[in-house]
């Protein structure tokens, strides 16, 4: 697991659309180039975070699924 992310957001236990909304909020306070690590337990977030990044121009660096948990690293554009 990448521990070098600028910030970490634990969205476990939250359901659609909260992981996206919290991610957006967490990215707002970061600087361009900073990275955000997101941990989610919502299976829907796998496709949603990908779509969110494509639409908002942020870069999805990593996307891991392990035992019902999903970890994403997003670089703010």
């Amino acid at each position, binding site marked *: 697991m990448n521990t070098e992310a600028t910030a970490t957001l634990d969205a476990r236990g939250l359901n659609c*659309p909260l992981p*996206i909304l919290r991610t957006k909020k967490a990215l707002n306070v970061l600087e361009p180039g900073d990275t955000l690590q997101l941990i989610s337990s919502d299976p829907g977030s796998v496709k949603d975070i990908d779509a969110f990044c494509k639409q908002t121009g942020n870069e999805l660096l990593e996307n891991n699924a392990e035992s019902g948990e999903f970890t994403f690293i997003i670089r703010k554009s």
Partner: protein
Amino acid sequence: MGNAAAETNDPVMDRNLFNQWFDDRMAQREAEHVPSMTIIATKGTLDMAYPPFILASTASALGWDVSVFFTFYGLNLLRKDLDLEISPLGNPAMPMKMPMGPDWLRSVNMNIPNVLMANMPGFEKMASGMMKKTMRDKGVATIEELRSICLEADVKLVACQMTVDLFSMDQAEFIPEIDDWIGAASFLPTAQKADVSLFI
């Protein structure tokens, strides 16, 4: 002068240049375009409160401009005190499941006859309470939470003036963050320019 004009007026040459320029302009326009969405929210029950607020808050997270027009029973979603309920009666698609007990029990869909639902006092209160518990257990946001996220994200919440007059309500019953009290003629021009327009 005449020769130079003849060269640049070569129709094939011009078309290629034009196509290149046109593609560039269109790509630039698309990159600069801020998507927009308008939603007309017409329902005031707990289950039907979710779609407009989920879509509006998510669209705002994607960077879209969003406005939601609340009309008829949808106006309930803008009350200061949200006390939303569901009605399983006449709503055959709604699953009736227990929010407590072992997993096998939670997954059973209980078919309760309409005649029972209609005659049992407090049935809707009970069903609403169970639905709210299920949502809380599953980590689904409350309507209050989604509504405040929308307000934070500058989603425009506009309300139908006619509905207030029709049902003898008072504007003071509704949240002060309402952007405007308007009618169909004021909302439609916004919807006309939107990329996405939904009626819920």
